[in-house]
């Protein structure tokens, strides 16, 4: 009466492709025969992490999801409101005006040379970071039903938030370019270093985004604390002031802040017309690597649990 399957011979895990060459062949094969049968094997993992090669390949294969997700988010957030896309530019400009006034008052009107350009550059840069982290905090929770119903690498959710923030950051760079030229700051080949510095900050941001969005699944108040933490973090980063302005007794704050090298390199390059120092770049690289590894591993080792925690 009860027919239980009889052929329960143990399947050797050797049938799984482990050879990277074979893997690559399989992947390209799969690309060609998209709708043809696929074979999936789901097994528990001892260490809680999926095979990273296969995982990263899946992320890359589904990257268009992240693009589309960020496009849709942007459209929903800006393009349907009254002032529409203008907000992308107005919002950071107003922010600059507020902080400029504030600092000017506190400093009794004697501001260092090129202070405005520094403020705009650093504030936009920080705004990119904090915007991405803030936005990504709710990305996994916001993906609710998608997470419950579809098997896909969940890292795409926070990464698409970072992409959204990056798209918001780009137009602000144009505003800064105007300020830069108007302030008569040096223009030269050293500005090319903006690209690696932005890439490094993006990597650091992605790591933080993964960390925060996974934490939000377990503690739903993380996203509420976050704006305050990010605000305080900004005051501890040379955004509203130059590194040189900081009195000795507060220097430890900059030393322990992983964002300091990014902003040091950024303002050396933009305000002073220097090539960013190797020390700053190396520290930034170190921070970014730690953030990506810690955030990524935390997220990926937890992501299979999200479906039961939402």
């Amino acid at each position, binding site marked *: 009466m009860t027919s239980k*399957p009889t052929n329960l011979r143990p*399947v050797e895990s050797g049938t799984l492709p482990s050879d990277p060459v074979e893997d690559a062949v*399989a992947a390209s094969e799969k690309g060609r025969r998209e*709708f043809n049968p696929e074979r999936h094997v789901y097994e528990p993992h001892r260490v*809680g992490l999926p095979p990273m090669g296969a995982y990263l390949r899946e992320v890359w294969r589904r990257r268009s999801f992240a693009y589309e997700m960020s496009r849709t988010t942007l459209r929903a957030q800006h393009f349907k409101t009254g002032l529409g896309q203008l907000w992308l530019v107005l919002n950071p400009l107003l922010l600059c005006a507020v902080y400029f006034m504030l600092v000017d008052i506190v400093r009794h009107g004697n501001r260092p040379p090129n202070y405005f350009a520094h403020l705009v550059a650093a504030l936009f840069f920080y705004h990119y970071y904090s915007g991405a982290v803030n936005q990504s905090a709710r990305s996994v929770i916001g993906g609710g039903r998608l997470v419950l*119903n579809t098997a*896909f690498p969940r890292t795409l959710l926070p990464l698409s938030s970072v992409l959204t923030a990056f798209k918001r950051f780009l137009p602000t760079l144009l505003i800064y370019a105007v300020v830069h030229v108007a302030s008569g700051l040096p223009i030269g080949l050293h500005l090319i270093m903006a690209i690696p510095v932005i890439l490094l900050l993006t990597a650091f941001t992605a790591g933080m985004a993964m960390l925060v969005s996974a934490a939000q699944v377990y503690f739903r108040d993380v996203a509420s604390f976050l704006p305050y933490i990010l605000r305080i973090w900004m005051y501890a980063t040379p955004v509203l002031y130059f590194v040189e302005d900081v009195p000795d007794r507060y220097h430890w704050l900059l030393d322990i802040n992983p964002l300091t090298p990014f902003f040091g390199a950024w303002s050396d390059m933009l305000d002073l017309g220097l090539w960013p120092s190797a020390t700053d770049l190396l520290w930034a690289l170190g921070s970014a690597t730690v953030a990506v590894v810690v955030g990524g591993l935390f997220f990926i080792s937890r992501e299979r649990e999200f479906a039961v925690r939402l």
Partner: protein
Amino acid sequence: MSSLSASEPTTAVGQDVHDRGPAVRVEDLSITYRTNYEANPTLRSALGRMGRSTRAVREIHAVKNVSFEVPHGEVMGLVGANGAGKSTLMRSVAGILPPTSGRIEVDGRVSTLLALGVGFNRNLSGRENVILGGLAAGLHKSQLKEKYDEIAKFAELGDFMDLPMRTYSSGMYGRLAFSVAVNMDPDILLVDEALSVGDARFKRKSLRRMRKLCDRAGTILIVSHGMQTLRDLCTRVAWMHQGQLMMVGETEEVIDAYSEFLEVGKNDTASLEDL
């Protein structure tokens, strides 16, 4: 904190297609997960609990040592009382929940029509939700563009496709979800209690569509409380109770045993049909 060991789909293409094993093979599968019973877990409450050293998680043994196979082209029904682990089993076959122990092999493209349906963001339009869902499921943009028209046509939503999904009625939700699931050309379709969507006409249409899928040697794994639906569609039925597989066999046989177990008469249509 985590009790779930992660799992990962390993894709091995290039095996001999002619020598196909079953479409779905589940071997000694157990799924245990921890879930938080607070409605809204917060850091604040966690810190509060730390002082009292209590925990707000609870372990759920949703599936216990389940083994079965579904050959290609078979429609297998899954019955069981609420909380029997049916949905968990379906999610793990879809690759969403990892096995705690055991192994699942799935041979073919899977499309899921799970209880919650499509549409993760109610503020986005039906079109945007369909596209994002498809991309997440691993389809290419060009393929989606092709499929999109079929999906929209089958769902019969008309202009609603471009309105935010919060404006949809629950029947419309269900129709769109069903349309997405069957139009992805799945080899294996996982359906979780979703056949009762839509009006009578749409229901008939969905049944026809599922039969068509079976004729094309598609495999369907279907959870339903509607016994008539199962009798109509299934070749075999599996019955789960409290995470364990009670019985797998011929449709009539299993449904009879299950009905007896539930102490409802054979012809008690009110309790056995999806209303």
